[in-house]
């Protein structure tokens, strides 16, 4: 086996694909080189909960043999990937970041994994996450995940390992899961590109749920073009998940280089307001808009009041929906959960039904606002996060309303809006702070405008180099 140089391992998935198809590198060498890199860096970064080197190398050898028999290259041929540990894998444990499932190995694969495998991708491991994907926390039974740009800082939640693994080039791409921002937040904090697809575009069969309303899987990659490449293989109707849509989808990868056929882009003004936004992040976002204007798009301020409260609504509904899975265990063995998740679930259990009904009414009002906004603007932009990656500190117990209101789920979170609306939203790197931390720009489309979202992100990356920056690790 040949140890591939760092310049190769840090390449985008699209570039690796070309290198494989032109026989400049082999899948076996790529897998073994990534495994070696994981062994070197994971003790510090804690991106992976499980690696499956033997299985991955066996798959790589089988793929190479299949080519010798004259088979054509499937779209993701030989690309090693890793997935959030919330997805079922029949040949590796699936912990969902919880001690409760530490010895659980399902007897089936999630549909997303089946589809990636069919497309020729090679699973090399399962990625770290907050317990059952619920929010922030300092409870990581499998090691505290650390941001590759500054290991004293958080990589973002809840798909922490997915953000790290792509940014630190521990695989060609990763798969995350987004309920209220869990693809986009780690992508933003780690300087990667991550898409939350439209609700219904990707099967949820075989993923451990938080919220039936908002959960959706999405890729975290180096580029928007890589996002399109992966999306072609994971989208589409799945009879095992009735919530998936059956409409015929375009080839995202074939069309991602085209200029999006849109005219007006709205900058969500509520997400740019001080003192909520970090000044350096604000500056990076405003600078980014110049690229869109130079390309002929109209970029205008756009007020969307629902954006300030969407995260709180998504969090409250998600917590209630999570009880459908967790209620019995919470009652029988509450101590088996970390304290943050346990307390959130207990509080959610006690929400009066009338208050919950109001929550659903508020959600509808917000959906109407979002729909109205998309009648004027084809795409919306805003920061993915209002503050740079926070320092890792132990969480204090909440004892006051003020503390509770400043917690992540109740503050104005820019990622809540797309989750609430079932909208596609991508986070792309658009700058760095003076502390050399990545800044993410979020592009949001109306439901099923995923292609336009990817196209605008790709256009931005053709005119900028932020996505090519690598952490010094």
């Amino acid at each position, binding site marked *: 086996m040949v140890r591939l140089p760092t310049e190769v391992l840090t390449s985008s998935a699209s570039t690796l694909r070309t290198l494989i198809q032109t026989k400049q590198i082999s899948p076996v060498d790529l897998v073994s080189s990534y495994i070696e890199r994981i062994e070197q860096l994971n003790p510090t970064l804690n991106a992976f909960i499980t690696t499956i080197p033997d299985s991955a190398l066996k798959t790589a050898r089988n793929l190479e043999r299949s080519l010798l028999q004259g088979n054509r290259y499937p779209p993701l041929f030989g690309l090693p990937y890793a997935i959030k540990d919330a997805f079922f894998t029949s040949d590796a444990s699936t912990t969902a970041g919880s001690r409760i499932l530490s010895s659980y190995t399902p007897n089936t694969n999630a549909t997303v994994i089946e589809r990636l495998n069919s497309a020729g991708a090679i699973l090399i491991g399962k990625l770290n996450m907050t317990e059952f994907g619920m929010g922030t926390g300092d409870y990581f039974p499998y090691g505290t995940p650390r941001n590759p740009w500054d290991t004293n800082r958080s990589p973002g939640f809840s798909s922490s390992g997915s953000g790290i693994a792509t940014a630190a080039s521990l695989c060609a791409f990763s798969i995350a899961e987004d309920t209220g921002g869990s693809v986009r937040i780690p992508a933003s904090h780690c300087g990667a590109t991550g898409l939350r697809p439209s609700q219904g575009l990707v099967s949820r069969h075989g993923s451990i749920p938080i919220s039936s309303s908002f959960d959706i899987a999405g890729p975290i990659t180096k580029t928007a073009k890589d996002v399109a490449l992966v999306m072609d293989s994971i989208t589409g109707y799945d009879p095992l998940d009735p919530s998936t849509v059956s409409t015929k989808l375009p080839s995202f990868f074939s069309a991602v280089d085209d200029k999006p056929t849109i005219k007006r882009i709205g900058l969500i003004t509520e997400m740019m307001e001080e003192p909520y936004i970090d000044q350096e992040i604000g500056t990076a976002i405003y600078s980014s808009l110049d690229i869109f204007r130079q390309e002929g798009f109209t970029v205008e301020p756009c007020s969307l009041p629902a954006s300030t409260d969407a995260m709180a609504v998504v969090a409250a509904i998600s917590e209630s929906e999570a009880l459908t899975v967790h209620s019995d265990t919470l009652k029988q063995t509450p101590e088996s959960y970390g304290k943050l998740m346990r307390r959130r679930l207990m509080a959610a259990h006690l929400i009066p039904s009338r208050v919950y009904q*109001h929550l659903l009414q508020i959600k509808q009002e917000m959906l109407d606002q979002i729909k109205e906004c998309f009648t004027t603007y084809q795409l919306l932009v805003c920061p993915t996060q209002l503050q740079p990656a926070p320092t890792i500190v132990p969480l204090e117990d*909440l004892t006051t309303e003020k503390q509770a209101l400043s917690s992540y789920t109740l503050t104005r979170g820019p990622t809540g809006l797309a989750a609430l609306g079932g909208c596609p939203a991508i986070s792309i790197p658009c700058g760095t702070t003076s502390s050399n931390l990545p800044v993410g720009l979020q592009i949001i489309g109306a439901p099923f405008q995923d292609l336009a979202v990817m196209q605008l992100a790709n256009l931005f990356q053709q005119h900028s180099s932020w996505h090519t920056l690598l952490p010094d690790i």
Partner: protein
Amino acid sequence: MPKITNKEILSLASSIGLNIPDEDLVEVRVRLNTSIKLIQDMTSKYATKDLIAKVLTQHGSTAD
């Protein structure tokens, strides 16, 4: 809606078979009351009016 007390929380929890450990009680109460207040504030902000509830309240007092 008045704030829910520790005692009320324990009673509510007990009625659904939920055992809240002492170390969790304060935070559960703070989270619950904050969520309820936030949702009530948003109910006003987003003009979500429980119209039928208001009509019933007004007419209920004069019903025979």
